């Protein structure tokens, strides 16, 4: 597969995996590995500013960084966390996530002989601890605040942007579960964070000082400890014996089964799916009322009312036959929604009515780039406007191209062009007040981080000088094999259901009931 590294060597550079614009200027920020860098497109490849996750910054030369003191403070904070969090390993991750991410570890790319050899070798190596990679990056509309999520420690970081490219860390909040998607409410004051447990949390952009903790969650606090089963609950003699055992056990384990403390910062559960959430976005109707649109692994796109009525589900946009990953609500067409994921097509919706307007085949265009492609996993959808024409650009996992469609006023969607790339696109965005530049973060085989830049000429895109990662992040490279890096960068195809899973309940049907409490 194009762009998929099959070498035995360790990857020589880390690609950029996330992009975010900073307001309407030519400034933008990009995440590579555990770092965030800011650039000015009009200046070029010279990075204006770099932030690195404190757990790594400590490992390198502390003296060189301006924020040395701050960094070490964060480090001590990290050390106070329970060790399980810091030492969480990639391979543990696969096991413990069970059903939800059972596909993980099976790479989507067809295994060539060379690659399976590499995999075999990788299996014998001691497991590498997962790096706190920046997995999500977002910014307020005006670019004055940047929000980032590092995956391994589930931490949500907020930075203040001075308008000149410098970021100042103003808060770090460890979320209960790993966030999968971020967005801001339309007023830019509240962060919405969707996680793999299916919940959407609302967090104030600026965290109030620690004394004013109002953990106003939708779920009420339980009065007193839960007592579980009692003598009147269970039925058979065997169960009764088991209950006695359980009660003894419960006393012994009382500490272990305490409800987990919620986060110590202001947060609110807005809504939840019983599925892994993949995307959250905010949209407005013709009356300017806000809505929250959420997508999950179980083919659902849900439309809920905005804060404070987020408990009301307005409708569902149903029709996907595979996971949904990407949602896009074009600015010039606020009434429509485009969604994509594991299906061969993009779906076009009149989202507020939950009405499918049509589907747009993508597989033929993907096969134009990769003739053998059988499965598609759309990773990102963006829209931009040229004059009064609305365009939608899609990228797919491990597919080195950008597919650009025109969304016409009558809701017809026409394929306009396919931009071939040198590597697999990881993120894509347009920047500038007239959306004159298209930026693509790419994974170039054995290359260092690179962002391809296209400049718009009419409705065509002309290649422009790319942005190269000049700031070194050597500290991270030494410990990551290609295999590990792939696992971190290509996660979307793993959402696909394998279809041979019975949740284990079929085979274990002979296990006596009472033992289920002790099994994991």
């Amino acid at each position, binding site marked *: 597969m194009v762009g998929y590294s099959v070498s035995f060597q360790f990857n020589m550079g880390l690609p950029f995996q996330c992009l975010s614009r900073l307001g309407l200027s030519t400034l933008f920020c990009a995440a590579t590995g555990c770092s965030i860098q800011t650039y000015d497109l009009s200046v070029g490849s010279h990075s204006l500013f770099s932030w690195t996750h404190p757990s790594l910054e400590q490992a390198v030369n502390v003296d060189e960084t301006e924020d040395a003191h701050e960094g070490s403070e964060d480090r001590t904070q990290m050390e106070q966390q329970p060790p399980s969090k810091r030492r969480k390993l990639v391979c543990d991750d696969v096991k413990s996530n069970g*059903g*939800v991410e*059972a596909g993980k570890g099976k790479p989507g790319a067809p295994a060539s002989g060379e690659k399976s050899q590499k995999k075999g070798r990788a299996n014998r190596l001691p497991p590498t601890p997962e790096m706190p990679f920046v997995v999500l990056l977002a910014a307020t509309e005006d670019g004055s605040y940047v929000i980032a999520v590092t995956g391994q420690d589930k931490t949500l970081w907020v930075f203040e942007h001075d308008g000149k490219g410098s970021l100042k860390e103003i808060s770090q909040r460890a979320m209960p579960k790993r966030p999968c998607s971020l967005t801001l409410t339309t007023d830019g004051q509240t962060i919405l964070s969707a996680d793999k*447990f299916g*919940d959407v949390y609302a967090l104030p952009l600026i965290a109030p000082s620690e004394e004013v903790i109002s953990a106003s969650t*939708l*779920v*009420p606090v*339980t009065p007193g400890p*839960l*007592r*579980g*089963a009692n003598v*009147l*609950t*269970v*039925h058979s003699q065997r169960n009764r014996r088991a209950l006695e055992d359980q009660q003894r056990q419960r006393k012994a384990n009382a500490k272990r*089964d*305490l*409800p*987990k403390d919620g986060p110590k910062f202001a947060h609110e*559960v807005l*809504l*939840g*799916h*019983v*599925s892994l959430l993949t995307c959250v976005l905010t949209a407005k109707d013709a009356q300017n*009322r806000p809505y929250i649109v959420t997508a999950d692994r*179980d083919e659902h796109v849900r439309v809920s*009312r905005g804060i404070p*009525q987020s*408990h*009301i*589900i307005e409708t*569902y946009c*149903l*029709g*996907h*036959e595979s996971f949904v990953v990407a949602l896009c609500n074009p600015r010039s067409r606020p009434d429509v929604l485009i969604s994509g994921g594991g299906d061969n*097509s993009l779906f076009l919706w009149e989202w507020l009515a939950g009405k*499918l*307007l*049509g*589907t*747009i085949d993508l597989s033929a265009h993907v096969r134009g780039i990769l003739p053998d492609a059988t499965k598609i996993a759309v990773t990102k959808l963006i829209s931009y406007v040229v004059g009064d024409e609305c365009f939608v650009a899609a990228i797919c996992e491990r597919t080195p191209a950008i597919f650009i469609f025109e969304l016409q006023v*009558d*809701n017809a*969607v026409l394929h306009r062009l396919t931009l071939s790339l040198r590597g697999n696109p990881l993120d894509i965005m347009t920047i500038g007040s007239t959306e004159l530049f298209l930026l693509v973060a790419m994974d170039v085989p054995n290359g260092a981080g690179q962002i391809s830049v296209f400049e718009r000429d009419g409705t065509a895109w002309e290649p422009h000088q790319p942005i190269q990662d000049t700031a070194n992040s050597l500290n991270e490279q030494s410990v990551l094999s290609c295999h590990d890096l792939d696992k971190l960068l290509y996660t979307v195809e793993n959402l696909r*259901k*394998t*279809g041979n*899973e019975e*949740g*284990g*309940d079929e085979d274990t*049907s*002979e296990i006596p*009931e009472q033992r*289920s*409490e002790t099994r994991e």
Partner: protein
Amino acid sequence: MTEPVNKKQKRADYRQAQKENGISELPRKRFYRQRAHANVFSDHKLEYPKTPDHMDWSTYFPAFATTTDSPSTSQPAETSLVNAADTYPKKLSKEVEVVDIGCGFGGLLVALAPVLPDTLLLGMEIRSSVAEYVQHRIAALRTQNPDTNLYQNIGCLRANTMKFLPNFFRKGQLTKVFICFPDPHFKHRKHKARIVSTTLNSEYAYALRPGGIVYTITDVEDLHYWMVQHLEAHPSFQRISEEEQDADPCVEIMRTATEESKKVERNKGQKFIALFRRLEDPPW
């Protein structure tokens, strides 16, 4: 440990005999037992429609299937876009309005069938063998009552309602949702798997029309408090008073007819009942 093999063999023989003789006798539970817990987060091999319009109900409620071509055989025309031709199965003359989530062996359905003769009732059960038992039970009951329409209004299918309820029902389609003796999931870390939670209640509110009722019953006191707390905390639901609760004929059936409630009765256990009304959505 030879027993499981025998059990499997006996089950296979029983299924074979059923196939040959047809289902006229009530099925025997011993051949359908399945571990009482299912992981609601795993994928299973579930079958569910893409949208409620894609659900073919005719196999579950053959007596209500329409014979004439219904008007909605295809989607509204999407001339400008490819892949538009999508056909829907025929609709029933009535829609399902009452759902028993986690219907188990179907005691409630069978008892409610004559009480709500003009309403379609659906049991939804995640354990495949148990759902199959209920399907066989309904088939047998229908065969045994050929001269009446009795038991034509109940059906059962295997589903994970925590994930796929909106795939089966339109907004506001349901009038009653029963949640009887759900899995208590005692451990704190398993609470997300409970069938009643504030976030999941939004989905029940979506499927229920305003005025619709959620019925809950359990023998676990803690779970009762949990369900009451979480449903009361949800702005779309309001607890129904004791008097009104006792006046509802469905409550008595729920209290006595389900297999679990009989089991609790035999063990002289307690039963906790709570009903909640779906309120109108506030102005927006």
